[in-house]
């Protein structure tokens, strides 16, 4: 019997629902019309199930982007996934928004994909992956920081680098041009719900936990420098 995966993406400005039958994408939606996820996501889910002719009870795995991302967006996605998983104790998995983003796009084998989401004031949430015959191979953990922190890693890899996500331009403008950098066109560098679904399949294969009760957002990973700065500020306030 085939495995049905339903993925919810509400980590950023866009909302999306995707359904996989085993590894095949059978439905996907993408909405970025400036509307609130709390109002759009449930109708989108209803349309998805109706269009694909699937009942919620037939879903074997719920997938959701767990962050980094918008505080409100992540909570809406988590709440929806947990609620859906509850009646039948359906397995449920949260995936890295950046890994899902990297799996939403195509880059040639042997090249690197940098997934970057804007984190304001010149910083991005980033992760880098190498495209191999076996799939994406992660080169660094999800990090918040300045794009230049990736420079050395990317130089050492000596491969073509494709940058995706809404932090792509910040990265491109702040990495030195001795790298072979390509920013994918705007409509081809967005995270999609299918990426969340594929990342969930990979995470399941890795044996990650699928208990809905343990699902929690990965909000914000402040870099070390920021933490130190905040500690210092706190210290100066109290003295």
């Amino acid at each position, binding site marked *: 019997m085939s495995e049905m995966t339903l993925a919810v993406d509400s980590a950023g*400005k866009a909302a999306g629902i995707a359904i996989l039958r085993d590894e095949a994408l059978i439905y996907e939606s993408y909405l970025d019309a*400036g509307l*609130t996820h709390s109002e759009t996501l449930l109708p989108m889910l209803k349309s998805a199930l109706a269009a694909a002719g699937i009942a919620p009870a037939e879903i074997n795995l719920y997938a959701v982007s767990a962050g980094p991302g*918008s*505080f*409100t*967006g992540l909570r809406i996605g988590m709440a929806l996934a947990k609620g859906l998983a509850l009646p039948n104790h359906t397995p449920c998995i949260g995936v890295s928004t950046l890994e899902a983003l990297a799996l939403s796009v195509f880059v040639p084998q042997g090249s690197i994909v940098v997934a970057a989401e804007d984190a*304001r*004031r010149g910083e991005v949430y980033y992760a880098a992956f190498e495209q191999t015959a076996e799939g994406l191979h992660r080169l660094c953990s999800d990090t918040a920081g300045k794009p230049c922190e990736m420079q050395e890693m990317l130089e050492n890899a000596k491969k073509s680098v494709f940058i995706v996500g809404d932090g792509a331009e910040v990265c491109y403008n702040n990495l030195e041009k001795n790298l072979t950098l390509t920013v994918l066109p705007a409509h081809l560098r967005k995270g999609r719900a299918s990426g969340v679904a594929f990342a969930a399949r990979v995470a399941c294969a890795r044996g990650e936990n699928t208990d809905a009760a343990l699902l929690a957002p990965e*909000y*914000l990973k*402040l870099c070390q420098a*920021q933490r130190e700065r*905040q500690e210092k*500020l*706190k210290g100066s306030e109290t003295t």
Partner: protein
Amino acid sequence: MAVYITHSKEETMALARQLSKQLQNGGLIAFTGGLGAGKTAFCTGLAEGLGCTDEVQSPTFSIVNVYRGKITFAHFDMYRISTEEDLYAASFYDYLDSGAVVAAEWSENIAQFLEEPYIKINIEVLGENDRKLTIEGAAPLEETPDAAQNGLA
């Protein structure tokens, strides 16, 4: 930078209504100035100008009040906010990204996390009803255009 003197709560609100014309595509306003300076009065004028129908109240306890209308207006009080995590968890960035008008009282607390450009407003108490408003980052406003009319009425 421009300095405006108002002589009543109504004049302060009128000035805010004028400023709202510059915020039709959203934007951030950072207030400085102590208690009772008239930040909430200013926000009431802003909300009117933005076509918001919900009642404006001080967000001291709620941290953020959201007023619905033609343009969404998110009204923050940063008195108890000091870290970027707090700011993030109060949905500050979500409202900015959504194209809302965002106003932050006690913005001194979060100044280091704000990204230019934004409008800075300092309100200083000159007397019982007189206020000095210093506005940076906005186009010049007419000096209290409907205050004179109010005076005549």
